[in-house]
């Protein structure tokens, strides 16, 4: 049962990645694209956790922690750049 659930969830997040990529490729404001990247980071976190679950191992967990902790730093940096032009003032 859990195997099916994991596969279903992985497929969903995978489709999420592709949809975000679609946003990237389409014309839109830079803000949209930064948001798409941020969402991709979230999807990637989910995929890694699911992959770890399906293999019954915790080694991928640290990578997940670090992405979760720092994924937003890039987003913030992009956003600051768009707003202020300078990311360290």
């Amino acid at each position, binding site marked *: 049962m859990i195997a099916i659930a994991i596969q279903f969830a992985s497929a969903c997040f995978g489709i999420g990645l592709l949809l975000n990529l679609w946003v990237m490729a389409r014309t839109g404001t830079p803000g949209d694209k930064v948001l798409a990247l941020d969402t991709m980071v979230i999807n990637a976190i989910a995929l890694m956790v699911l992959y770890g679950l399906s293999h019954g191992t915790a080694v991928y967990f640290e*990578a997940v922690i670090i992405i979760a902790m720092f994924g937003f730093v890039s987003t913030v940096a*992009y956003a600051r*750049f768009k707003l202020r032009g300078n990311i360290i003032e």
Partner: protein
Amino acid sequence: MSLFLIASLPFLGAIFPALLIRAGRNASAASAGMVTLTALIGLLTNAPAVLRGEVVVARIDWMPGLGLNANFFLDGLGLLFAGLILGIGLLIILYARFYLSRKDPMGQFYTYLLLFQGAMVGIVLSDNILLLLIFWELTSLSSFLLIGFWKHLPEGRQGARMALLVTGSGGLAMIGGMLIIGNIVGSYDLTVILQHKELIQASPLYLPALLLILAGCFTKSAQFPFHFWLPHAMAAPTPVSAYLHSATMVKAGLFLMARMWPVLAGTDAWFYIVATTGLVTMVLGAVIALFKDDLKALLAYSTVSQLGLITMLLGFGTKAAATAAVFHIINHATFKCALFMSAGIIDHSAHTRDIKRLGGLIHLMPLTFTIVLVAALSMAGIPPFNGFLSKEMMLEETLSAVWQGSPYLVAALAVFGALFSVAYSFRYIGHVFLGKRRSDYPGEPHDPGPGLWLAPVFLTFLVVVIGLFPNAVVGPLVQVASGAVIGDGQPVVFYAKLWHGFIPALYMSVVAVVGGFVLLLMQRRLAPLWDAAPRPEAKVIFDALVGGFTSLSRRLSEALHDGALSRYAAIFMVFTLALAAYAYGTGAKGAPNREMLDLTIMPVIGWICLTGATVCVVAFHRNRFLALVLIGVVGLIIALAFNYLSAPDLALTQISVEVVTIILLLLALNFMPKNTPQESSTGRKLRDATLSIGAGLGAGGLIYALMGREFSQPSISEFHLENSYSGGGGTNVVNVILVDFRGFDTFGEIIVLGIAAIVIFAITEAVLASNVRGRLLNREPDMAQAGNPHPLMMVVATRVMMPIALMVAAYIFFRGHNAPGGGFIAGLIAAIAVVMQYMASGYEWAADRQRVYYHGIIGSGVLIAALTGMGSWFAGLPFLTSSFGYITIWPLEKFEWATAALFDLGVFLAVLGAVMLALESLARFAWQPGMDSEHPMEINPARDDADNHEKQEA
């Protein structure tokens, strides 16, 4: 004293004069003198054994796999040369102390001199030809520094360049010759090579090896047609000329010919090449010397001539000639050094070296006159001085030399050369000192103080004593030295005397002296004829040649390296593709022997994302910001792929590097145009597209071909997996490779990383100290600014996260040895934790609270890593041998300790410091002090009250 110490003392001691110059010029000179004296005494402690006929050796296997061993040996020849180098070096140090003026950087001078001295001593003591070659190149380099010591003079710089180019390219040829010899014999040890005369001379490669080695010797010893660099090297300060051209640099070529004499000499090729070159050089040098008006130029060409004489003697290939050559090396060193020093004295007080402006100095400089008289008469070959003895030996040897069937040709030419050398020696005495006292000297000629005359007087004393008692003073030395040159184990009989009876050599001497005197009388009338005669000017030819090569290489390098990255990349790709196509067409490749994996949905999605993002980068590359966002996507997918392919370490690294890179690029983008302008033509775009598609297909095809097949030989991964725990004490193989298997690499890399960061800092400092600073401060933002510089949410979030992030860094660090993580990743995480504060709270706020300089963090990281590595020395193990064990500290469970963790701490600190220093430096460009509130987002009513209070009072 050990030979190692003798050879390394000048190098070790070279630091002292440079440091002690702060304590004055006397201290600097004294330290150089003490170093040389110590080495000389060390050499003399070995002298009794050598004079008994023993050979002193010191051996260390340095890189035995390459045949490169740090072996030194001291035989008679080595003793003679090392004695000359160190002994005359001591006199030069004394002389230079009083010769150089206050304006000259004396500390630098002595440092260069000691480096040069060390290189020379290294040449004459080396027992390994590879080691000898290293010292040989070192003499070229250090003599370049010495000749060009007066950097402000164009002649000095040009002379130094010429000397470096000529002797350096000769050295290059010699490397080839020596490698051939080493290959023939199968050993690079000189003592072994010297025992294989038949083997070497029978080899078909004997002639190429001989030519290459002689090219090195002839360029170094200024033999025709390479003699032209020596007179130009006279632009150096006189002590340098005296040292380089009497006892050391130019004698290195002679030394090597003498050293290789036992195995190379005795063939027709040797005789015709070496003896002929020597003879031509001797005659030509002597003729030119007579017509030079500059005292130092006269001495320079006379040196060329005398070196030719010695080369010719070595070229004869007979034992008696070799003995005469050794004897003349000693004599030439004594009188020529004294003559150079006296030329310096005259230049110093008369302020000119032009013979035409001198004359009659005997009345003003009696002491200098005495020195010159003795030394020049010795150079002319007048009894009872030492030059007479060796010159007569030389003339006697020429009588037995047969050149292409003509028995007296060599002798006649030798007399002709000797005649000219008598003339130029007499000219030095006659035209400079004799005659009427003049009133138009540029300076006020006078005898110098003892500092300047002590050294030449000592040398002229030697000239006289060796002339009168040759057998007692230098007999034993000449015997062992020529024994070493000849190298057949038979004792050499050396017996020199002033009076041999009426032998042919005496008549030849008399002809030379009388003829030389007559020639001198005619010199003033001959000089205009000589000047009018057309002859090739070496410097012009040399400059034209060098200029031609320079413009050729400039054209080549400007075609390949025009500063545009796209051109380098294009050339690189075309070349690689061509190589790959060649390899594919000619090499053999087996059928794929690995099974393909099943295609599942996840990799397909990843692949679509990766290629999709890449295509988007190409499509949107003109918008640089968008390109950066898309690169973020690529990085993210790659991290996912690393994870999927079971490389969590790489995923961790990828994620942290990604964040730092994006911040770095955004910092830079702040100062750059936000859009890339359209510049390329359609044709160019088409070409570039073809190239990049070719490169992509090539790389993809290569990977596809590689992954489908097993390795053709066992991969090193097996070794790493097997030994990771047993040898390195860690179960995380990636980390054990970093800190243990390849610890030395990592050590080098953290140093490079630190250097790179410090260079970024230094460039920032330099830019901000220039007038660019003003433009940066007054810069108008090129896009509209919105929002708050320090948003409340962000400040709070980053401050709350800081301790958590640091804890994660600590966690990743500590578990790194056994699970994914380690110092490198932990360092990046900590750096991101800190840089978040810079981004949220501003540069000023963060920098104020950063109390430890990043330089210090980098330095301590490198030091900790180094000390950890050195720790293994105390256990008698090589650098960076790691060790581990288990301890239990109550109330914790049993845990493992490993020295590798300490090394990893060094990596952590170096990475943290380097990343932060680089980011902080870049951030400083945009920082506009005072634009910012001093307390971003810090609500402190007490301070606000105080501020308001201050305002009200004002």
